[in-house]
């Protein structure tokens, strides 16, 4: 089931966009004013794009559109070079197995243990139990939660649930990661742990990602730090430098008002951006 979209993704690698994700003039409204109006941006291979914006501006909607969980009213969305705007759900399901998504409130299956949550995708593919166990333990080791293997989500703290959700998203080595406010509602220490895991995933596995947050501190931590494999931890980049593969998008009143680098963001003359960053 997982091999089909991989083949298709390779076949369409020469698509002009040559990007992991492309939004072309995407608009969407529910019952009321438009949530998104002609939003366009790209996520290139190995790139991490941080989507900023005030609460309720439609950031999570962008993530759900990116994964085909919602459909736009107009515009086009390409995922791995394939247009998903009108793709039938059964084809989308196969394509989604190539992505990993971390939901705002973790969205762990509360009736399943941590092992079954993390290994869900592997169990769906009917892999041997030993292989599932091994890969689940490896993913839990990555988020430093191996001891929670047999626990139920209800007995985990908010931060632990978020880390288990990251383990679930990365266990099948996705080709694209979507993070929906991974540090939302967490204390600063736990937020730092989550940030470090995301930086580790970015720098070790070079997985492209689209990350939604309204916490500027987390966003700038990701832009100004890197994972040091020798030290086994996150270290700051030299003063005045930022990670060139980590760039920003800012959404305001349904429109994308910024698309560029960290330097471009902090030096922007846009009055809203100045106020937002202050």
């Amino acid at each position, binding site marked *: 089931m997982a091999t089909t979209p991989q083949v298709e993704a390779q076949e369409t690698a020469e698509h002009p966009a040559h990007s992991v994700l492309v939004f072309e003039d995407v608009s969407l409204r529910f019952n009321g004013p438009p949530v998104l109006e002609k939003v366009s941006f790209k996520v290139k291979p190995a790139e991490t794009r941080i989507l900023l914006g005030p609460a309720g501006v439609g950031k999570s909607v962008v993530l759900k559109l990116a994964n085909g969980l919602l459909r736009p009213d107009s515009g086009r969305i390409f995922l791995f070079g394939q247009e998903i705007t009108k793709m039938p759900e059964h084809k989308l399901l196969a394509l*989604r197995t190539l*992505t990993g*998504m971390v*939901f705002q409130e973790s*969205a762990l*299956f509360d009736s399943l243990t941590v092992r079954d949550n993390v290994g869900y995708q592997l169990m*769906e593919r009917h892999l041997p139990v030993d292989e599932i166990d091994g890969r689940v333990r490896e993913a839990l080791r990555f988020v430093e939660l191996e001891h929670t293997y047999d626990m139920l989500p209800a007995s985990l703290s908010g931060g632990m649930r978020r880390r288990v959700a990251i383990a679930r998203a990365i266990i099948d080595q996705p080709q694209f990661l979507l993070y929906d406010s991974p540090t939302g509602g967490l204390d600063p220490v736990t937020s730092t742990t989550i940030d470090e895991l995301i930086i580790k995933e970015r720098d070790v596995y070079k997985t492209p990602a689209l990350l939604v947050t309204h916490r500027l501190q987390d966003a700038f931590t990701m832009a100004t730090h890197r994972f040091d494999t020798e030290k086994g931890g996150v270290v700051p980049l030299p003063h005045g430098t930022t990670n060139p593969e980590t760039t920003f998008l800012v959404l305001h009143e349904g429109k994308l008002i910024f698309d560029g680098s960290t330097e471009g963001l902090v030096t922007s003359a846009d009055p809203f951006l100045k106020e937002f960053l202050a």
Partner: protein
Amino acid sequence: MPIESLDTLAKRMLFAVQEFTLFCGEALANLFRAPHYWSDVVTQADLIGVGSIPIVVLTGFFTGGVLALQSAASLAQFGAQAYTGRFVSLSMIRELAPVLTGLMVSGRNAGGMASELGSMQVTEQIDAMRALGTDPMKKLVTPRMLSTVVMLFLLTIVSDTLGTAGGAFVAVVFSAQNGTQYFDSAYQALVFSDIIQGLTKPIFFGFIISLIGCYYGMKTTGGTQGVGRSTTQAVVVSSIMIILMDFLLSRIMLWVFPPM
């Protein structure tokens, strides 16, 4: 009421009917599409079927008992007390066992399905399932539908048996009737069309309970309050639909198998 509101209401109702029809169609079509979640079917059969046995046993037994109690007194006035078994078995098998079992299972399971799937919906677990490449209709809805249809059919047979037994208990203990005479009367009264009628209904009721429960669950919005609303709506709508469907099926059965 302004014209616009009536217009909007009519559109919303039509849209709901369209959505429910598509939902049912997809759930049924998934029976013939891979992957099939057989382990979920068995789990749901245990929860829905085995879990409902106590209420079905109690309801069936006491309903049969009450029927015998009431009918024996009335039949005695005409010297026809020996027909108690016939009266109880016909009433239970043709009408009461399927309807009461349907209503009991509806109260217990339509609400349960709506609240379980509704909670999953509002906590984004359904979206997470889709994001992991699993079709929630195949994984959650179709196994519940299949389990409910099969188990309601079997539970109705249990209710038929217990209802007849309850009638026998009351007839023998309270009305001092002969047990053999009761069972002989009950058995002689039954014909093929009675059994068909009694066992066709639970199949339709099973579809109603599971599909309405799952539909309201999957369409839940509005947090925990929305889950409560979906649960109540699922129980109310499925109960009404069971009564309505019972009437329609009885009418059709009488047309197909006219009384001798």
